[in-house]
């Protein structure tokens, strides 16, 4: 199914300026991998080389941080929205 993925401003240039991209997949990980396959500029920005979530992003499925769900194995449903957010921190 096609899932809506919302991108932060920093990543939009790698997705032809789009803030929202419809991407196929049945789990969060599948959607993100398909997203990176469709927009190679996103490769390595969301997922690391070993396929895990990059530490500089937070990924939400609707209102929930996927780290507190089943991480990349979290199932998505029709109408779900995945939001990719930059981790904002400092000292």
């Amino acid at each position: 199914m096609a899932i809506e993925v919302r991108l932060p401003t920093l990543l939009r240039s790698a997705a032809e300026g789009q803030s929202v991209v419809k991407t196929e997949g049945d789990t969060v990980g599948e959607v993100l991998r398909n997203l990176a396959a469709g927009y190679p500029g996103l490769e390595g920005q969301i997922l690391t080389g070993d396929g895990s979530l990059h530490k500089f992003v937070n990924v939400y499925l609707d209102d929930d941080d996927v780290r507190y769900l089943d991480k990349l194995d979290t199932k998505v449903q029709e109408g779900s929205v995945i939001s990719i957010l930059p981790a904002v921190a400092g000292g």
Partner: protein
Amino acid sequence: MTELGDSCIVIPADIQNKIMAWCLSSLPDEGCGLLLGFSDKGFVVDAYLAQNAAKSAKLYSIDGKDYLRADRQAEQNGYEIMGVFHSHTHTDPYPSPTDVELAPDPNWHYVLVSLRHEVPVMRSYRIVDSQIAEEPILPEEP
């Protein structure tokens, strides 16, 4: 590519006060939040007051849910997240090495509030490729 040294940021006085009040009320921890507005014009329309998930006097981390809410608020109102503010409780208003290392977006504005002295001091910076450039803060459009 973002150019350093030729930008400014407009933060209306009431929003400057809102930011400083939030930083003071967050003591002893660092206070933080997101700047909402128009990045290309450097115009801040509102400040989203976020929880410091790090709960620390030396570090800050914007709570992920706060970021999500701020992002939705910005989108509903036709603007965007254009930067971040946070306080330094005991040091000057200048980006720390951690701030520079973790700066997520070269197009963002990074506002620092020092609470080192009795009167808070606010400064704004651009951070691109680990290079820091201060930019003037204006209370209204020039």
